[in-house]
């Protein structure tokens, strides 16, 4: 019996290897680029490097190395761009985006986008382009936006740009008031924060409350503590989540809009403390895309019907001892936004837990690789 199984396995594998074929990919039929009408960027060139397709049994493995050169056709500077990459847009299992949030591209200048995509799909699939790359949004200086915005890239890029401007202004201020040595110290401190930032693995189960929940053992409602972030336009009033071991379910938070503008989106950072007193940034709780509209002075509620399971490494669950929330982003109904000030981050321990802004990450890397002179040159450009 055992021998028969081995022979069967060998036969299957031999058939598979006979079926395995590798070959170059025809980019014209495999990849489609979509730029909307009146797009502020045009495509100057596209190359595909060592893109290839391999057929292995019933699966086709596509490795696409896409290098695009785009030109800014708009008079305004481009600060960020997001492209949508879709393999089968109407079904789960095939949507991603690629963003570059630290651009500074003047009118007429070109810039590269390099995207490596791997797609595994059945050989017997629908015809047509295997991968589509579409422009989802371009953010210009002054937070002006162009694009279909299917992925809410306007909001995402706007928050990145606000954080970028905040940190760039802060570093320029350090340079002008305290000098280059202080700037170096800031860079080193940032680098240390980035390397020492504690990591946490998070598994998200969406809508996990449906089956078997009634039969589950009683949950332990644990209240959130809230960090007061100065100048935040909304105030977190109370909140709780069902905690069981390393799992947190169904977070619910009440908040007041204490600003004079209507709020349409809030994101709450979620810090978890384990039994040993270590703190981790566990993720973010965004308000639902469509449900939030909070007029000035009104109280609202944020709900998440998800289960988050925390661990360090693959088999080290992090038992949740307490949770802390803080307001990390607010979008107003009039299109404006709010992010915590640099001072607010520095005066709390948030700075150690939060990942740096994209611009701070870029400048830290620039300093690390090219030194102070390159950093000064970058900060001094207009």
């Amino acid at each position, binding site marked *: 019996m055992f021998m028969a199984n081995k022979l069967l396995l060998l036969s299957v594998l031999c058939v598979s*290897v006979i079926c395995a074929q590798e070959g170059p990919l025809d980019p014209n039929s495999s990849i489609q680029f979509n730029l909307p009408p009146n797009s502020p960027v045009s495509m100057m060139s596209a190359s595909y490097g060592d893109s290839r397709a391999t057929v292995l049994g019933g699966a086709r493995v596509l490795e696409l190395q896409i290098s695009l050169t785009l030109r800014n056709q708009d008079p305004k500077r481009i600060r960020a761009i997001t492209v949508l990459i879709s393999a089968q847009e109407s079904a789960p299992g095939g949507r991603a985006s690629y963003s570059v949030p630290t651009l500074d591209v003047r009118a007429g200048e070109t810039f590269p986008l390099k995207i490596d995509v791997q797609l595994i799909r059945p050989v017997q699939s629908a015809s047509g382009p295997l991968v589509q790359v579409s422009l989802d949004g371009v953010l210009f200086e002054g937070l002006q936006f162009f694009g279909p915005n299917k992925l809410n890239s306007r909001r995402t890029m706007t928050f990145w740009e606000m954080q970028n401007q905040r940190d760039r202004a802060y570093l320029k201020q350090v340079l002008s008031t305290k000098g280059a040595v202080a700037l170096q110290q800031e860079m080193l401190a940032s680098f240390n924060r980035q390397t020492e930032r504690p990591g946490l693995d*998070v598994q998200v189960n969406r809508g996990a409350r449906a089956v078997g929940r009634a039969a589950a053992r009683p949950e332990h409602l644990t209240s959130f503590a809230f960090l007061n972030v100065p100048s935040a336009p909304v105030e977190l009033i109370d909140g709780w989540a069902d905690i069981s071991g390393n799992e947190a379910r169904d977070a619910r938070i009440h908040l007041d809009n204490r600003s004079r503008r209507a709020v349409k989106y809030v994101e709450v950072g979620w810090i978890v403390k384990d039994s040993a007193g270590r703190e981790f940034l566990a993720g973010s709780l965004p308000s639902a895309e469509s449900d939030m509209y909070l007029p000035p002075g009104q109280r609202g509620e944020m709900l998440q019907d998800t289960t988050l399971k925390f661990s360090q490494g693959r088999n080290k669950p992090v038992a949740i001892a307490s949770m802390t929330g803080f307001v990390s982003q607010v979008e107003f109904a009039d299109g404006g936004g709010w992010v915590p000030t640099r001072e607010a981050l520095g005066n709390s321990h948030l700075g150690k837990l939060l990942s740096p802004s994209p611009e701070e990450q870029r400048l830290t890397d620039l300093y690390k690789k090219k030194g102070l002179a390159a950093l000064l040159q970058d900060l001094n450009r207009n």
Partner: protein
Amino acid sequence: MTDLTHPAETDLALYAGGDLPWFRQWRTERHVHRCSRCQQSAAEYSELRATPSVVSGLNWNRMASEMKANIRLGLAAGECVGGRLAPRNVVSGSRLILAGGLLSALVAVGAWISRPNLHPVATSRITSGTVLEASESGIQVRGMRQTLRIMTPATTRNVVYTVGAQSELQARSLDPATGNVAIVHVYGE
């Protein structure tokens, strides 16, 4: 399975120049895509190849010493992580028959197809059957019929992963070619 062992430094050097036989090139490439250390090594070999061969004032003895030191360092690093990896197969006695080699390669291919990555660092499982996963090599959305993976730049280290409670995964890294930050999202819904 077999992907758990690192290629030899000589293979990495040949791989960087595209000089391996096609199957070893293909297999090494699979490994390099998943292993940051080998990515780094391959990138360094590529850079060495890209350096003009005639450079005035070059201290060849020193360069040779540094290369040896780098190789030693790489081998030492490999030994450090060796505890987590399967031991390299050492063929002793009679040689493996061709079918055995073929079988190993096929098992490797099968394993490669069936397991999406070696070191998932974040996972999001959606009730529809879609799974979002982040690994050292990239970030991916895996559905019932297909898997879409966006690779992080080959020589990038220190990728920051973020999980959003609305079924999305984000990987942020620095593109070594441009110095810009690249942020990849995969979406479960």
